[in-house]
């Protein structure tokens, strides 16, 4: 029972946090479209994108039930591991100042300028606004779809994963409605750290299961793996900062 709750809880949390990051990025663009070109095409495009993503989850999710569990663990686990570790490395490099932090306010400004330069709409529908909004939701949402299907499919937890993503969407929509500006104060890099560790832990756990390695403590090992990846990431940040802070050798 405890093991089941550990796994389901981690699934919901991973889907919620990862989706939160992606929905915040999509919200920035939809807000820019709505402010510059009008709310009707912005929201119609966003709704169309969201419908396409839901259709992808509904079609692809149950299809994965047909795949043998060992193959599913290996393939989905490997993809999830690569995905999570990519996020983790990016978060490390951002925290150490090697690459710049993602800035929602600056992304909003750039998008607003581009949309203003694009000129007035022709005809009853503003195609530029519609497509920009649709594309933002679909491209950012692809990551959400992957995460929901990946963390949900292997353990038969598609519903908790979808619920986590749905809750993240609700939170972002409510915040967007209340604030009417990009969510620039959300600690996006800290979220990426947490999500990277969670997804890497899930990924390596399933790869291990897929190749028939046995984890000490079975499903509870996921908690240890999350802690382990977080510690490795924090150690990496520390090493990077030390390397950058060391005084340069004098030039001859």
């Amino acid at each position: 029972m405890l093991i089941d709750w550990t796994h389901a809880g981690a699934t919901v949390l991973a889907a919620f946090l990862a989706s939160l990051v992606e929905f915040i990025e999509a919200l920035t663009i939809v807000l820019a479209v709505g402010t510059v070109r009008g709310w009707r095409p912005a929201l119609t495009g966003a709704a169309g994108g969201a419908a396409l993503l839901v259709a992808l989850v509904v079609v692809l999710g149950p299809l994965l039930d047909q795949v043998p569990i060992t193959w599913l663990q290996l393939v989905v686990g490997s993809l999830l591991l690569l995905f999570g570790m990519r996020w983790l490395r990016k978060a490390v490099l951002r925290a150490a100042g090697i690459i710049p932090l993602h800035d929602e306010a600056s992304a909003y400004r750039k998008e607003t300028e581009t949309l203003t330069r694009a000129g007035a709409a022709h005809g009853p529908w503003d195609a530029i606004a519609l497509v920009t909004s649709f594309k933002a939701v679909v491209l950012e949402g692809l990551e959400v779809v992957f995460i929901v299907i990946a963390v949900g499919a292997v353990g038969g937890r598609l519903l908790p994963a979808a619920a986590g993503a749905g809750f993240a969407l609700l939170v972002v929509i409510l915040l967007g409605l209340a604030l009417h500006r990009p969510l620039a104060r959300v600690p996006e890099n800290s979220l990426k750290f947490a999500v990277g560790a969670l997804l890497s832990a899930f990924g390596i756990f399933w790869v291990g299961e897929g190749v028939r390695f046995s984890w000490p403590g079975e499903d509870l090992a996921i908690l240890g793996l999350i802690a382990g990846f977080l510690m490795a990431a924090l150690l990496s940040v520390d090493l990077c900062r030390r390397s950058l802070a060391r005084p340069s050798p004098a030039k001859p």
Partner: protein
Amino acid sequence: MNWFTAAARELFGLFVDDVPYTAAIVIWVVAATFALPDTTIDRSWDAPLLAAGCALVLVVSSAWAAVRHRRRLDEDR
């Protein structure tokens, strides 16, 4: 077509950011899968070692990125 290319690029970018880093993870996972069962005395160490190797790849790759960044900064001075 642009749309399709953008979607394909986005899909590829989900998993690959830095090619040597991704390659190192894949190589370690494949090597560990085949080598660990034959090399460890106690099989209960296989899974933790598999995970530890991935964590080590993260540490080494980040540290290497810091060294390269530092070199670039020194060259610009």
